[in-house]
């Protein structure tokens, strides 16, 4: 058994004739922030959902902290904190009620839960809305509540799907620091993002997912070498490895002709 906190092997998921994942293999080691980069529909969210136990794989395996998530989902889920791309919460509950529910189901100790809840609520500035139904909160505040719910039990594995999407600059900065501290203590983070700068700055390793498979992975230097672009940015490397650079150029050319060079407009 490897030391990886997350390990998938031959992970496959099909919806009818559409293959969302086609034998995806990845490992995330303790102390790593692994960024999943890929175009829309590449399989990032499906990978995270399968690992979190929300979607069942068609084939392949997922190990979380050495536990087979398909055979022992209960213990595997105890090791995971998950934040969805669009927050999935009981929206008729308040943040206080939601955390009470979660902490009770997870069997956490009251003192530590209260301490963490207070610290997280103050950090993300949600104390004042602690008794407001989640349905009435803004998308950014919902995202903060989802992050609190993912962190409240201090899991070793964090699965974050575009976690910074709706966050303000302050909360975004706090979350990034929290993730760094989390991996320094031996935890692992698997997260998906579209923002190349964040991936470049935050991730220890990046996996480029395309067509339901990891087509390249490594740190930025390794990816540059793989793409044959010595000083390229992550975005340029990404475009090269996903064969989208030439396609993007031709689309931009066509758009320019129709929107900006058209004398009739």
């Amino acid at each position: 058994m490897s030391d990886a906190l997350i390990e998938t092997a031959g992970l496959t998921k099909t919806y009818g004739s559409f293959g969302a994942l086609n034998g995806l293999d990845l490992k995330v080691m303790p102390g790593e922030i692994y960024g999943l980069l890929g175009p829309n529909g590449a399989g990032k969210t499906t990978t995270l959902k399968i690992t979190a136990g929300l979607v069942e794989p068609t084939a392949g395996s997922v190990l979380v902290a050495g536990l087979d998530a398909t055979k022992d989902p209960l213990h595997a889920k105890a090791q995971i904190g998950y934040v969805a791309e669009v927050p999935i919460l009981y929206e008729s509950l308040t943040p206080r009620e939601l955390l009470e529910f979660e902490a009770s189901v997870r069997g956490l100790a009251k003192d530590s839960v209260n301490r963490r809840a207070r610290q997280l609520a103050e950090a993300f500035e949600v104390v004042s809305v602690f008794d407001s139904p989640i349905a009435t909160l803004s998308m950014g505040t919902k995202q903060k509540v989802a992050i609190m719910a993912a962190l409240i039990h201090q899991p070793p594995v964090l699965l974050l799907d575009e976690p910074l999407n709706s966050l303000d600059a302050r909360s975004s900065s706090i979350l990034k620091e929290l993730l760094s501290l989390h991996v320094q203590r031996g935890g692992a983070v698997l997260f998906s993002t579209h923002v190349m700068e964040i991936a470049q700055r935050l991730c220890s390793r990046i996996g480029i997912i395309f067509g339901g498979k990891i087509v390249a992975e490594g740190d930025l230097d390794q990816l540059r070498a793989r793409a044959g672009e010595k000083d390229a940015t992550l975005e340029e490397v990404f475009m090269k490895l996903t064969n989208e650079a030439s396609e993007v150029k031709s689309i931009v050319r066509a758009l320019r002709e129709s929107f900006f060079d058209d004398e009739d407009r």
Partner: protein
Amino acid sequence: MKIADAWRLSAIPYSEMAFRSILQNSSNMWWGSFGRGSSESSGRQDLVERALRIARFDKLIVAVFVTAAAGAPFLPQALGASYGVSASVTLSLAVAFAFIVLYGVQTLSSFVTSGPSPVLSTLPLMRRDVSLVNLLSFVRTNDYLVVGSVACQVFFVSLLTGSALSGLSMLFAGAINSAIGVGVALWLSSLFYRNILASKQGVGGSALRLALLLAWGIVVLGIGVLFAAAGYLIPMVQGVLANPDALTSTILALVYPFSLGVSVGSVAHGFTSSGAETAALGGTAVYLLVSVVISRWSVGSVASFPERLSNAAGAGRAHDTSVALRRPVAAYVLKDLRAASANLPSAFLFALPAFETLVVLLTRAFLPTLGASTLLVAMTLGGMVSLILPLVLISSEGNGFDFAKTMPLRIRTIAFSKGLIATAVFLPAVAVVYVEGLIKPMASPFTALIPAASILAVAAASLLEVRLFLGFAPGGRAAFVLQEFARMAAGAAVVLFPAAIYAAIYIPTLNHALAAGAMIAIALAELVGVADYVRRT
């Protein structure tokens, strides 16, 4: 914007709202069996198509039912009863009104909480046009049942009176009734959500919230009682209206919807200048005005609901973050009650104990003794009502169910918590029977075991229902209907079986002790068997 254009455009937000309501309640109910053989066989596309199919199907079924219900008060006359149409029209209007309000409120949770405005707000439309389209998309949720019920009323009045003018007056009364019904449904929905959202804090807020929920539940269930009692009410109302110059008739004729009923009756049978008829015409004029005002209010305020709700929700601010912890089943029970209390379609569960007690009491209230057969019927009926709850509780999970799926939760925790609530709701009815037993003589002391056995059977049935519901994989329409039927039939069988055993043993032996002993043994065996089945998951 022309009404015809607005009506055409309203199909888009209506579909979105209907889809959102159904999807919210049905998309994520399957707990799954991660890694244990089943697979997620239904894609998102299937889900979307199924939700839209259910929306159309549900609306049609409800319309057929309401049309039949609106026609029912006319049947005694159609079958030869000799009284006039006033009472029938009044009760038909009351039934149609109640169902417009009930169905509108039940299906429009998405409409009131988020509104179709976001769909339309990006289009270059005037605010008033957006409001009109919003209102018409709301009306679309009721269109089949409004058209069906009014057409049925017009048909019966025309048939029974042989007068086209009477039919026309019925059409007029039906239009007023529908306009007021739609307005009241909108108002009730927004009132409920505003007060629920604004009263989350403090003891006073909780008390207000509970009072609102109870009031709401009693109103909803009261509509059902009104409908069920229509057969008794028609002759009673007719008796009061038989003397049109009496003060009670005049006062009654001012009350909605008696005014409309008596006015239609006047057109049908000829105006006699009685006190009741004069009062009814005056009342009808007032209600016509009210319907116009309500319609204008509805058009003007539909678009601003989400904004108003948002303002109401921002009323209170918390200052601390302390949380209270419980055991998992208790936490799930509390979560279910909290979620249900903030969800209009499921909030009626808080009035269910009162309703069940009423059902149980009414079945034998006028009997001098507590006989075994009446107790069996009453307890079985009460138990059947309890079986509504597991489905309501699962539906009220909504999209939040995905949150629960990310936690280390066993199906048994969910099943036991929902089973516990369903059983607890049944207990007041049982308590009332035992109190009644202190006053009335029982056929045998052993019949006192019947309610106790019923508690065990209801607990077993509700546990089984939840377990079966969470265990089934989603599929096509046929699979959906089959699974629904199997789940409900299984629950009903578990409630019925112990009672059937009692009857099967008592009839040949006439021995209450043996029959009651067998009943309680069977119910206990059911509970132990189902609990063991659930505990393994």
